[in-house]
């Protein structure tokens, strides 16, 4: 598969603090990549840089062949990158359906006058988008929740809805920020199946940040370990498991158990 995300020498400073430096990664279509590291290692910062929430101090990002430097977040989303958030950020008081419909914003093209005057293009595109949303929700077993306010859903369903919403923007790369946070082992196991399904059905590459090592080791084909803003190791789950640098980053000593 071709490289769809190419990040080279990415770095950012916050004030005097070097939060991330010399971050390189190439992601191929349909790959599942894990991003792990102790708290404060700069994992979410990577996501914020990839989605242009923060702008890098140095280095560059090329997404599906386009340079994202200086672009706004919504433009980068249009290039084909979507994300979920560590602390769920749904449109809480809007319905589940509307949450998905908002992410379909750019798949519709009717103008403001066409909307206000309810011209045929409005009806046609709205109906298509609504149908598509229903199908997408059905894939995640959420079609019967379509009319409930997103904030009223149980925790696990909210996490799933964030994934649905991200997928609705039709991404090539999907960033999942701690998707299993707060889930019990059976929910996590189900989430692993979901992530696999998403990759297979939608053909997206997935980068995920996660502290749950059973999930990371279970589904990631490649893992990158960050510590103090630097990549300290990368490789297959087996390579990472036995890497002494990783063990040290997690446990802070030379000898010890593996991080999982």
């Amino acid at each position, binding site marked *: 598969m071709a490289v769809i995300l190419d990040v080279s020498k990415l770095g950012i400073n916050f004030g005097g603090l070097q939060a991330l430096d010399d971050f390189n990664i190439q992601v191929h279509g349909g790959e599942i990549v894990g991003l792990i590291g102790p708290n404060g290692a700069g994992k979410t910062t990577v996501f914020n840089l990839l*989605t242009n*929430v923060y702008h890098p101090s140095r280095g560059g990002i090329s997404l599906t062949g386009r340079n994202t430097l200086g672009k*706004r*977040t*919504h433009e980068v*989303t*249009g290039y084909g990158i*979507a*994300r979920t*958030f560590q602390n769920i*950020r*749904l*449109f*809480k*008081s*809007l319905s589940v359906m*509307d949450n998905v*419909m*908002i*992410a*379909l*914003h*750019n798949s*519709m093209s*009717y103008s*403001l006058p066409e*909307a*206000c*005057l*309810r011209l045929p293009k*409005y*009806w046609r*595109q*709205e109906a298509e*988008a609504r149908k598509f949303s229903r199908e997408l929700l059905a894939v995640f077993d959420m079609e019967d929740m379509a009319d409930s306010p997103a904030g009223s859903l149980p925790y696990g369903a909210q996490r799933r809805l964030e994934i649905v*919403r*991200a997928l*609705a*923007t039709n991404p090539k790369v999907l960033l999942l920020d701690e998707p299993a946070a707060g889930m019990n082992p059976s929910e996590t196991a189900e989430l692993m199946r979901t992530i696999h399904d998403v990759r297979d059905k939608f053909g997206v590459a997935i980068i995920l940040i996660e502290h749950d090592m059973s999930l990371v080791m279970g589904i990631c084909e490649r893992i990158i370990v960050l510590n103090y803003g630097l990549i300290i190791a990368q490789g297959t789950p087996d390579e990472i498991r036995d890497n002494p640098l990783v063990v040290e980053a997690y446990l802070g000593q030379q000898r010890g158990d593996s991080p999982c």
Partner: protein
Amino acid sequence: MQTLLKSTPFRYALNASAIIGLYAVIMLLIKTGILNRYQALMLIPIGFNIILAASLNLTAGFLGQLPLGHAGFMSVGGYAAALFSMSAALPTNVELPLALAIGGVVAAAFGLVIGLPALRLKGDYLAIITLGFGEIIRVIILNLKFTGGAYGLKGIGRQTTVTWVYICVVITLFIISTLMRSRHGRAILSIREDEIAAEASGIPTTYYKVLAFTVSAGFAGVAGGLYAHYLSIMDPSSFGFMRSAEILVIVVLGGLGSIFGSVVSAIALTILPEALRGFADYRMVIYSVLLVGVMIFKPSGLCGRYEFSLGDSIDGLCSRIRGIFSRKGGVSDGGDS
């Protein structure tokens, strides 16, 4: 029956006939003298207050950003409309709509120019900067030659009629409610809910903030035009911060994010001070006590985020009636509503 009630053409026909029907009833009440001359004249301020409140609701309720300078846009629109109609000599039925359109466009242009820098700020800071812009507009109008300075404008044609106000209200409410049920409206709502998530979902948030702000200012300008041609004078001192606050009070009392609430509350708060006229000196005291009381006991406003839909209401009524009948027949019908 039920599919008919839910079908789009039927809903349109229903709403259109309700709009015409309500107009006919109002006209009949005026013609027959059930509404006396004074009460009939009250309909006009009710009308422009509805427009002001609904348009402010677009930014305060749906966009979730609080502007405190709405009166500024109202005055800009009012002056533009009045200056146009005072210099033009056209038949009333051409002149007034043109004047209102000019008022709306000029106010929208001000909204755009002010919104672009101001909307970089959020929350309280946005409120404060719009307050600042509102006051500056007032002071500038006060010091310009062609706006009549402190004397304001006098002798503007009294062209605002109940019919014109009614048409403007219907157009405003129609545009705002269709806008809010489109992808553009949902984009505006998503900004209120979570700006970062909206941006990450592909919404150009800056564009939609400025858009909502501009549209809101435009409608305030139309209301200002109606106001000018109703009072026939424009006095710059009546567009200060207190006027903006009054409009905000209507919106919050009705319910942030409920157009229906804005309409109900605009009607109630326009009539209330007049209805309290019997209490003479106490009326404004009672008004403010009521206001504080409602906020303490129902902070989400009278209507919360409820939206009225004639079709849905009739639909609900029908299934309730069916429910009663089927229960009598001993068959439960599931009773969806």
